[in-house]
């Protein structure tokens, strides 16, 4: 009826400052304790197909100085408008330019090396991948070790490509370069920073 009506735009936080602070604290914990699932402490409205936790992370981490790449399946008009309105971030077409990339699994051609890796002088210029996965209980058991893990810890993330172990190995050896990952499922998240080694991978045992 009216061209000015943009009824599709969804709200985001109830309390932008404190909700973003609480979410920042959560992702900090998630990356400090790789492999442990952390639940979002706040309520957020997210446009489909963004998951609650990836939407909250974008609201927290992306702003007008940040470049974000969306996987084609997530790159809908509603998501783009929501991000532009609430984050004001730059949406880039080339994944190599992105500081944050949002990916939804299953994604057949996930190649970690196609994202920004940073350089030896500035390893912080690498990308952080927010990866939406279907489950934190199904999937093969991966044995993690490294900083933030007392001995070893089991990671269950479903929907990753079959050669993920190999890809992560390459990402691990290129340290200090390489990407960091945060897996998002519903309102939960699991951090996988580049310092974490995946020691072994057992096939899914049901």
């Amino acid at each position, binding site marked *: 009826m009216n061209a000015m009506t*943009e009824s599709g*735009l969804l709200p985001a936080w109830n309390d*932008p400052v404190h909700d973003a602070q609480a979410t920042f604290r959560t992702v900090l914990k998630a990356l400090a304790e790789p492999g442990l699932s952390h639940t979002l402490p706040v309520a957020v409205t997210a446009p489909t197909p963004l998951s609650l936790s990836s939407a909250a992370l974008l609201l927290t981490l992306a702003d*007008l100085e940040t470049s974000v790449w969306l996987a084609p399946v997530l790159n809908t008009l509603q998501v783009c408008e929501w991000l532009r*309105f609430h*984050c*004001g971030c730059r949406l880039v077409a080339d994944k190599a330019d992105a500081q944050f990339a949002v990916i939804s699994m299953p994604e057949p051609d996930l190649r970690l090396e196609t994202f920004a890796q940073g350089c030896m002088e500035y390893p912080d210029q690498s990308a952080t991948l927010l990866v939406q996965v279907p489950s934190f209980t199904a999937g093969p058991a991966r044995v993690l070790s490294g900083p933030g893990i007392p001995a070893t810890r089991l990671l269950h993330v479903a929907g990753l490509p079959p050669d993920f172990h190999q890809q992560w190995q390459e990402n691990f050896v290129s340290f200090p370069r390489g990407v960091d990952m945060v897996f998002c499922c519903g309102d939960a998240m699991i951090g996988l920073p580049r310092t974490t080694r995946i020691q072994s991978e057992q096939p899914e045992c049901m």
Partner: protein
Amino acid sequence: MATMLAEEYDFSLTQHGDEHVIKNSFSDALIFCMKQANTQEERARWMSLLAKAPNATLTHAVRNYGTLPSFVWLRRPETGLAMVRARTGGSGTQFNLGEMSVTRCALRLNSGEMGVSYISGRNIKHAEWAAVFDALMQSEHADRVADIILAPIGQALAERQAQITVRAEEARVDFLTMVRGENV
């Protein structure tokens, strides 16, 4: 006299107290909200009236309007600083005139219209009302809003402008040179 350039407003990232940081640039947000507007100029006119409304006039008009519709916040009112840029003499070099506090918000009426407001100062209620009436001006209540809200605001602003003009007139000095007869 300095001329302000509307398109040069840019929100800086200053946070004071509990006030929220305004992250988007002013022009981006406006363009986003209005990109589909086929009556852009008209909307800009009423948004400007609502934003400049004197507090007393607006409060009185809102009381006359009666019950306001319910809405959901898309962006709760947040106050930040905008850098006002100007040109010397209106056409000279650009400079930063100074910062002003700006409050903005965005909401959506339950009937679907989206309202946006940017006002100077930190009156949160003013920002909320301006956004509600911006949304209502896009609905079938537009005529009623124009009569009850916009008309008195326009009148109050015109009266204030007239007073300023009168005072300026009183202080005007006309310089003239007496004819001294050299050219005769």
